[in-house]
């Protein structure tokens, strides 16, 4: 473990010996910053038509008539298709669990008769231009037999509630108890202290700046449907497209161009891209669909609406003895593919004990269905919520026991590794205690505790809050199989290819949507091969160029994709050494890769540049060793061993509450994180900062609401309060480094961590500030109204 990482802005391999650990400038930036990126909406094909959707205006009911006559007569409209016209297969996510635990539900590409949320697509309209298509959508006439809408988890679970899906009793799609330690009730009965927390978090939109979109076109020459879409999972989109259309996967090619964020919303398969592709096939014309912001806020995938009823037992010294949690997640109208509606409750159930040594654990996780836009994974998936609940439990216990909030955590975090928890997960080494101690030290050194006291005398209200957490990054096939998914993400493939001039192309099944894979993967491969980072180019997001892949989610890219690329690079390196030794006429163990050449270990002046070896491999195959095939291509796959690797961090927040307005102002934000070996510190910090901003958004601002009829009341930025740069504080980041032994580069994932820690840290800080009032808050977002009411209750 070390606290420093090389941070050269202009790294050189010949000086540093590696590109890993250097803040190499982002390869993507020149094109993105000068407007030369290529996003879906930048794509224009000859004869391209434009699509939009007729969407349900009622939350629940049956369509009695869908009249597209006027739509089809609208000037500029080419065609309009309903579910009957297109006759597509449904999208169905399945878990291998008994019917009592999981109910699969079919999500039709276009709703047939039953509608289950406002915004559900009923028909696709295709026109010559984006204006005519809007006119066509407006001309559609839909009549409904409206039914009462189910708009909350409470309503969904109530006796005699209307059913959202007829085959899902109690509106419950998943009801599983993954763990129940024997004798846990006795532990609670005998414990010195039992604390109770009822916490909840609001529905949120992951809100990528680039909304969803697709351009689909049939290519006669390739005999392929070419679907360019912004997705985190190109191969999964291909699979579902082929299934819905009843075609071989060979005949579908999915390409993902530059993306303006995804955050999970784009790691599931959407209905609109399938409908647009089907329309393109039917019309034999390219079809483009770009989601507008209103649809993105009301009809795209949402997340995070959860509530917890949790208890924890403690002994007199503040050691946790048992944890008991009942988790209900409001997953909206449908199961998302491939993760299913189980994604949130299963994640929370499997991982809730987190960084703490919890001896006994019982959990019940439920996914309920309601008449709201369906949920998909969102950066952190359930972890921002259960971490918040765990941290609340410890805070409450610290108050009850009269212990310092940091001290009670210190007494409970896992310190010896590997550690196998009560949740049957084995944790690899991390810096749980070290990050906590360092974070507290930083807060103390900056004098925040003193300032809080001093300013209190002047009537100002400050609070300090912490959050200590870990995050499993790089889920192995085994980990998803444990959750009984029928499609099991886990492994990834990579190919590393050297061309005759010595340039390198790397392919990866992961999918960059803002994380700067082009830079990071180039650094990994360039370090392995000892070559200039500029000569390595990453290719991803094309199902024809990449043999298979699971895309990017769950902080898996650098751990799994990066490891596959490392292994493929090693194999290519071995071939270069083999050919090099042969051409240098020396022993195979007397050569090494160095600075773009194979050189002799005993005589550094004798070396062959890669370009010369590559020339032989392709153009002078007669000079190759007898046992060697021509060409320079190597492929490898990687699937993490065991339970994968856990990144960790501690966040500290200082807030000030403003009486009168109830505003929560963040005065200081500190993050001490450990993602193993940092490949590019600047990119890691960018991920942390962006994640923290989204975490603060959930803690203080964002909330998707519906009225009692299921009408979304957040269909514009007037109502969905997204924080801007003005609300997000500077974040100071400190790195700890526990090299991971389970991945090739020693790196752990870092994409989601920031989002996970922020809600708990902010909530704890607010509660610390509210301490004189005796009021404790357990719900996010913490609105000014709530804070103001609490402050007014001050004695």
């Amino acid at each position: 473990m070390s606290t420093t990482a090389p941070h050269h802005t202009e790294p050189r391999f010949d000086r540093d010996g590696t590109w890993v650990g250097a803040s190499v400038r982002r390869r993507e930036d020149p094109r993105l910053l000068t407007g030369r990126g290529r996003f879906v909406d930048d794509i224009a094909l000859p004869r391209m038509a434009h699509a939009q959707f007729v969407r349900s205006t009622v939350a629940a009911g049956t369509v009695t008539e869908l009249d597209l006559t006027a739509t089809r007569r609208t000037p500029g409209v080419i065609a309009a298709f309903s579910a009957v016209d297109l006759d597509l297969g449904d999208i169905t996510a399945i878990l291998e669990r008994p019917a009592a635990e999981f109910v699969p539900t079919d999500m039709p590409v276009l709703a047939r008769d039953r509608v289950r949320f406002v915004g559900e697509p009923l028909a696709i309209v295709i026109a010559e231009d984006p204006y005519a298509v809007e006119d066509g959508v407006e001309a559609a006439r839909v009549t409904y037999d409206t039914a009462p809408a189910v708009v909350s988890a409470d309503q969904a679970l109530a006796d005699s509630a209307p059913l959202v899906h007829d085959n899902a009793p109690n509106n419950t799609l998943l009801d599983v108890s993954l763990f129940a330690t024997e004798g846990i009730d006795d532990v609670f009965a005998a414990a010195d202290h039992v604390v109770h927390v009822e916490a909840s978090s609001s529905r949120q939109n992951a809100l990528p700046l680039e909304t969803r979109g697709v351009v689909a076109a049939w290519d006669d020459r390739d005999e392929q449907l070419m679907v360019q879409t912004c997705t985190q999972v190109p191969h999964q989109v291909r699979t579902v497209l082929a299934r819905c259309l009843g075609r071989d996967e060979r005949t579908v090619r999915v390409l993902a161009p530059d993306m303006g964020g995804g955050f999970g919303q784009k790691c599931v398969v959407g209905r609109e891209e399938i409908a647009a592709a089907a329309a393109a096939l039917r019309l034999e014309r390219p079809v483009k669909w770009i989601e507008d912001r209103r649809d993105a806020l009301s009809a795209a995938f949402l997340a995070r609406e959860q509530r917890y009823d949790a208890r924890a037992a403690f002994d007199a010294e503040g050691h946790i003895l048992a944890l008991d949690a009942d988790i209900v997640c409001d997953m909206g109208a449908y199961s998302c593919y491939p993760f299913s509606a189980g994604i949130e409750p299963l994640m929370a159930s499997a991982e809730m004990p987190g960084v703490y040594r919890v001896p006994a654990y019982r959990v019940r996780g439920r996914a309920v269905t309601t008449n709201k836009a369906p949920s998909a994974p969102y950066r952190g998936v359930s972890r921002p919520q259960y971490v918040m609940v765990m941290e609340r439990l410890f805070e409450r216990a610290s108050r009850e026991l009269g212990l310092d909030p940091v001290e009670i955590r210190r007494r409970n975090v896992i310190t010896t590794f590997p550690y196998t928890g009560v949740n049957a997960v084995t944790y690899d080494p991390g810096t749980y205690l070290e990050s906590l101690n360092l974070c507290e030290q930083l807060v103390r050194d900056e004098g925040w505790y003193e300032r809080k006291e001093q300013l209190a005398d002047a009537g100002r209200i400050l609070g300090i809050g912490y959050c200590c957490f870990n995050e499993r990054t790089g889920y192995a096939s085994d980990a998803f199989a444990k959750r009984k998914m029928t499609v099991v993400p886990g492994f990834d493939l990579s190919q590393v290819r050297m061309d005759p001039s010595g340039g390198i192309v790397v392919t990866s099944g992961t999918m960059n949507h803002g994380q700067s894979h082009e830079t990071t993967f180039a650094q990994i491969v360039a370090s392995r091969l000892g070559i200039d980072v500029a000569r390595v180019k990453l290719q991803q997001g094309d199902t024809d160029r990449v043999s298979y892949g699971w895309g990017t989610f769950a902080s898996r890219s650098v751990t799994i994709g990066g490891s596959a690329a490392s292994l493929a690079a090693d194999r290519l390196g071995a071939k270069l050494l083999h050919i090099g030794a042969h051409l240098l006429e020396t022993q195979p163990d007397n050569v090494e890769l160095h600075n773009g050449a194979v050189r002799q270990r005993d005589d550094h002046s004798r070396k062959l540049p890669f370009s010369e070896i590559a020339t032989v491999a392709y153009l002078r195959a007669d000079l190759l060793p007898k046992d060697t095939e021509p060409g320079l291509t190597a492929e490898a796959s990687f699937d993490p061993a065991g339970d994968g690797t856990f990144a960790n961090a501690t966040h500290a927040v200082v807030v000030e509450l403003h009486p009168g307005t109830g505003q929560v102002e963040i005065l200081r934000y500190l993050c001490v994180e450990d993602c193993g070996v940092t490949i590019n510190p600047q990119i890691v910090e960018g991920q942390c900062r962006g994640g923290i901003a989204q975490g603060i958004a959930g803690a203080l601002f964002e909330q998707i609401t519906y009225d009692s009829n299921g009408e979304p009341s957040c269909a514009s930025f007037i109502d969905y309060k997204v924080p801007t740069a003005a609300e997000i504080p500077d974040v100071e980041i400190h790195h700890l480094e526990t090299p991971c032994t389970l991945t090739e580069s020693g790196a752990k994932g870092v994409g989601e961590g920031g989002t996970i820690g922020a809600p708990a840290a902010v909530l704890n800080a607010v509660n610390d500030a509210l301490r004189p009032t005796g009021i404790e808050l357990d719900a996010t977002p913490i609105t000014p109204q709530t804070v103001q009411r609490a402050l007014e209750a001050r004695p």
Partner: protein
Amino acid sequence: MKLENTVAVDAPPDQVFALVNDVERVAGCVPGAHLDGRDGDTYHGTVTVKVGPVTASYSGTVRFLDVDATNRSLHAQARGVDTHGSGDAEAEVRLAITDNGEGSLLTIDADLLIRGKIAQFGKGAIALVSERLLTQFATNLAELLSHDTAPGTPPATGTVTSTDTAGGEDATGAVPAPAAPPSAATTTTDQLDGLSLVLGPAARYLPHVAAFGVGVLQGWLLGRLSAQKKQLRYFREVHRG
């Protein structure tokens, strides 16, 4: 969304009730409404409402469910579908006329259900707009009645209370609706921007502020262009040097 409005009218209750039963004239008092025809108890028409950038034009019917001459009350139901396909609206209206000693007291109870774009736009905006529209309707109606019964009497005053069953925030801080000119009661087929009604005087200045902004921007751009030109000329001269 439940709305309630009471208006005092300086005329005997029976006279007021007779007028209120004249649908053609009453419809003219609904802001943005237009009556197309009649089919027994059912009247066909459209109501156009605008909230900021969103316009909804509801085409549908008004049906009288109950007209009680003895108690001087009536109960009507309206249903409409937006001609732009973005949702529908339903309203149940109860009207009652009571004797308040000096004249009549007109009580309007409305239960509104509005779906689609217009309901999704700007939290509470539709509630505020509906409230304003009802006030406007009541004012128009009172004026019409005052003109008919006793010309020259001052217009009646009305108060509105609303309960937003949708759970939105209370509509507070709205400026009083401008008093409708008598002509509004007779020609109200034009669409009405409900939001500007709510925003009041501020909205009227917005176009001027925007125009001013554009003007400043233009001036700045022109300034920059001419400065650039000067610089280029200078470089050229230096180059020729």
